[in-house]
């Protein structure tokens, strides 16, 4: 059942991304380009999505467990650390250059053009590079708790 849920929620996510206009780089960059002809679409997408998740997650967190799993898998990391800020800044540079963040880039496989065939392999290379670097660092770390905070067994966002 969880696998069917994953497929169906992915389907809703992808449809939502496509209808929102976020797979169009000119709309995303139209939002980021405040000195050009400003396009507020992204603000409507993000606030629409967050208004649903704020209400939904508030209600869900009162439950003891998810419907088809034993636990909620959420990061325990709470502090604002350097990887969070530096990583987000690097992401912001990449996003501001091309107008692609990971979701739309993957959704674009539904109607692939040359940009996808350049961006997606580069994106995967970036993930691989991070995995390689963090594995290298892991060897040097003595403290096992630090180790855990660097590389969680289950990658989670937030």
């Amino acid at each position, binding site marked *: 059942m969880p696998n069917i849920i994953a497929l169906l929620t992915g389907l809703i996510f992808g449809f939502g991304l496509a209808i929102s206009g976020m797979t169009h780089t000119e709309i995303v960059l139209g939002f980021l380009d405040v000195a050009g002809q400003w396009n507020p679409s992204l603000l*409507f997408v993000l606030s629409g999505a967050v208004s649903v998740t704020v209400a939904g997650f508030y209600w869900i967190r009162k439950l003891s467990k998810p419907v088809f*799993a*034993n636990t909620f898998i959420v990061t325990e990391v709470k502090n604002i650390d350097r990887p*969070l800020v530096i990583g987000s800044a690097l992401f912001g540079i990449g996003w501001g250059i091309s107008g692609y963040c990971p979701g739309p880039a*993957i959704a674009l496989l539904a109607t692939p053009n040359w940009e996808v065939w350049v961006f997606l392999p580069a994106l995967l290379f970036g993930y691989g590079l991070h995995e390689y670097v963090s594995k290298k660092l892991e060897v040097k770390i003595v403290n096992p708790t630090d180790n855990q905070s660097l590389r969680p067994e289950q990658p989670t966002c*937030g």
Partner: protein
Amino acid sequence: MAVTNIVNAVIGGFLIGASATLLFWLNGRIAGISSVVASMLFTKDRLWPALFLLGVVAGAAIYYALGGSTPIPRNGFPVWLLAVSGVLVGFGTALARGCTSGHGVCGLGRLSLRSLVATLTFLSVGLLTTFIVRHLFGVI
């Protein structure tokens, strides 16, 4: 901008939020695309991430098949710059452990301070970068 664009943006936002809420409620998982990709690539638990991503592609395909407007690629956008952008987005979101969906949609939904900092950081750096790339270097 046209009213239909705003309506589509709001509908799309609601659907993305609904998807994230359902995945968390039913499976206990966070719908952060960058983490889902990382799970698929680097953990043993890769079936559900693969199915979720397959769903994302299929969902977009349905919208385009129903006549939704498909993105048009840019002519003359530098290939090397697009590649650099991809590496930065991949490495950056892996390091920050979240992207627009993980920190933006889900993290803000969880009222996570980390996610608020991440979202404000990538939004402000994104604004600055777009200004530099478009208006100082003239790349459109």
